[in-house]
């Protein structure tokens, strides 16, 4: 099976008078259409691993490749271009730009990518919102949306450029159980219907259990990977 993402011997150390190892010796491979939940205690390196896999950070040792391309040799601009076209991020906070409507927030990554013309962009953005049950939120500012809707809008924005891989860092951390369930419903649908890959870092064991593949981190190391164990 082909891999969309591969990490080999990845270690990340924060330099300083007393260097801190965030993750160490990580080997991880992700196939298209795979849904992975990363769990572990606080400070185990879950988010750090996600930022490394999402090309927001660079490993101190080891290598990460996306769709077969080694990212070590990539410039910052090339990494940014890869994030723009192939990756989507969802964080614990929605981080929607408060000055823009929900629709405009979705249009921002599309405008930056420049793959579609204006009409196509708007059609795509509206379709995305509709698929997440947010048709009526298009013209509203983030402050006019509920917490669950903001997070769904953030997921829609992450999907705006049709990424192959969605990375979510505690996406349900600020949501109630019902909204948390809705978010994971969306992830499941993205994997099942659209064959996207999803990696979710979460503390929520109940929702994490819905992912077919479970990865557990302790002290920066993978102590369990259901795909291997």
């Amino acid at each position, binding site marked *: 099976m082909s891999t969309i993402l591969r990490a080999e011997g990845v270690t990340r150390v924060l330099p300083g008078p007393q260097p801190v190892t965030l993750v160490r010796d990580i080997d991880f491979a992700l196939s298209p259409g795979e849904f992975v939940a990363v769990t572990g205690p606080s400070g185990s390196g879950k988010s750090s691993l996600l930022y490394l896999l999402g090309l*927001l950070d660079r490993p101190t040792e080891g290598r990460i490749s996306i769709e077969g391309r080694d990212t070590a040799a990539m410039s910052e601009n090339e990494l940014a271009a890869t994030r*723009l076209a192939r990756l989507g991020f969802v964080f614990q906070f929605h*981080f929607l730009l408060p*000055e823009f409507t929900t629709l405009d927030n979705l249009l*921002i990554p599309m405008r930056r990518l420049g793959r579609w013309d204006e009409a196509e962009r708007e059609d795509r953005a509206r379709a995305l919102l509709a698929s997440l049950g947010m048709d009526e939120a298009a013209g509203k500012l983030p402050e006019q949306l509920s917490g669950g809707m903001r997070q769904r809008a953030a997921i829609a*924005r992450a999907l705006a450029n049709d990424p192959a891989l969605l990375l979510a*860092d505690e996406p349900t951390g600020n949501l109630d159980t019902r909204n948390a369930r809705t978010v994971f419903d969306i992830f499941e649908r993205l994997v099942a219907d659209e064959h996207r890959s999803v990696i979710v870092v979460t503390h929520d064991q109940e929702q994490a259990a819905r992912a077919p593949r479970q990865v557990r981190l302790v002290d920066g190391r993978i102590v369990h990977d259901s795909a291997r164990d």
Partner: protein
Amino acid sequence: MPLALDIALGHLKRRKRQTLVSVLGVALGVGFFIGMTSLMRGFQTYFVQQVIDVAPHVVMKDEFRRPDLQPVELAFAGGAVEVRGVKPRDTVRGIREAGAKLAAIEAMPGVAVAPMLRGPALLRYGARDTSVSIGGIDPERERRVTNIEKDMTEGRLEDLRSTANGVIVGIGVAQRLGAKVGDTVTAISPAGVTQPFRIVGIIATGVTAIDASEAYVLLRLAQVLLDRPNVINSLRIRLDDVREAEPLARRLESVFRYRTESWEESNRNILGLFVIQNAIMYSVVGAILLVAAFGIYNIISTVVHEKARDIAILKSLGFRAADIQRIFVLEGAIVGVAGAIAGWGVGIGLIEALAQVRFDQVGPVIQGRSGFLLAREWWPYLAGAVFALVAATVAAFIPARRASRLNPVEIVRGAA
């Protein structure tokens, strides 16, 4: 609309009050620059115009910039020669072979020239007397070189020729003597010559120093009065193109050796004062714009601080560092452009307000005008706008660069 511009405008709209204050700061800087420039340039242009209109553009005098070199100094040029106790030759002052020089200069294209013999004299009318500077002129040539004819409030320039022993006096001289046109005054020169003159005209240039001390007679009468027959002590030149004054003065001096001054050289002190005046004015206005630039720096820094999360998300979405920097530099530029446009309005308003000011209680200040002299030129608007835009962009550049270097991971961690 480009995406970066859209986001930049979004940030600024979100902080309306701070944006407005920054725009106002720039607007005041630009507005005052325009207003003050108009005021300064108005006065300076008027002054220069007056100098150009009233006085000859080039004057050749009967003196030399450097004394003649002694033969020994010529023979040992550059040698260790010192000549002491030189007794100057007792020569008659005046421009030698003035007729030939007059003809040579007159033959040049775009040049009018008039001879003059000027000397001190005392004018007496009844029991009153006043010292004047008598100028012996050739009326035909004089009217082509100076504005004397335009400045005459009574009488005509030709009356100097048609009236025996006619004299034109400054209005201040006439007032001091208590004399009017038609009255006969007595002129007494330092040479001891006494001669009656009939006042045939009055001039009022608006320059008190001239109006209170000058008088004009025919050249040959001045030569008699001052006991300097056939002598002239200056050649006054007017040019079609006033910018040629300095080069022509240098050329004439190199050919004829007599000290020849352009109007710029004659008024170098005042023109130098204008330079200092302008430097002070531009420094003050520059300081206003500098304060405005600090305001812009402040607002963009605050926005960068407040928008750290947005910057992080934009970077995670795939925006490059250059994209982020562009957004914040654009914010500064937008404030600069808005400030410049508002500043144009402030500048226009300021000029119109200054134009309404009248100094009625002190009477006419300059040539019957009782208000400010204002220049209405387009370049201060352009210069003010360019300066504002540059200052605003530079002020925004530093926080923009800081924004572009923010590490999204650190920000997201901090927010979590």
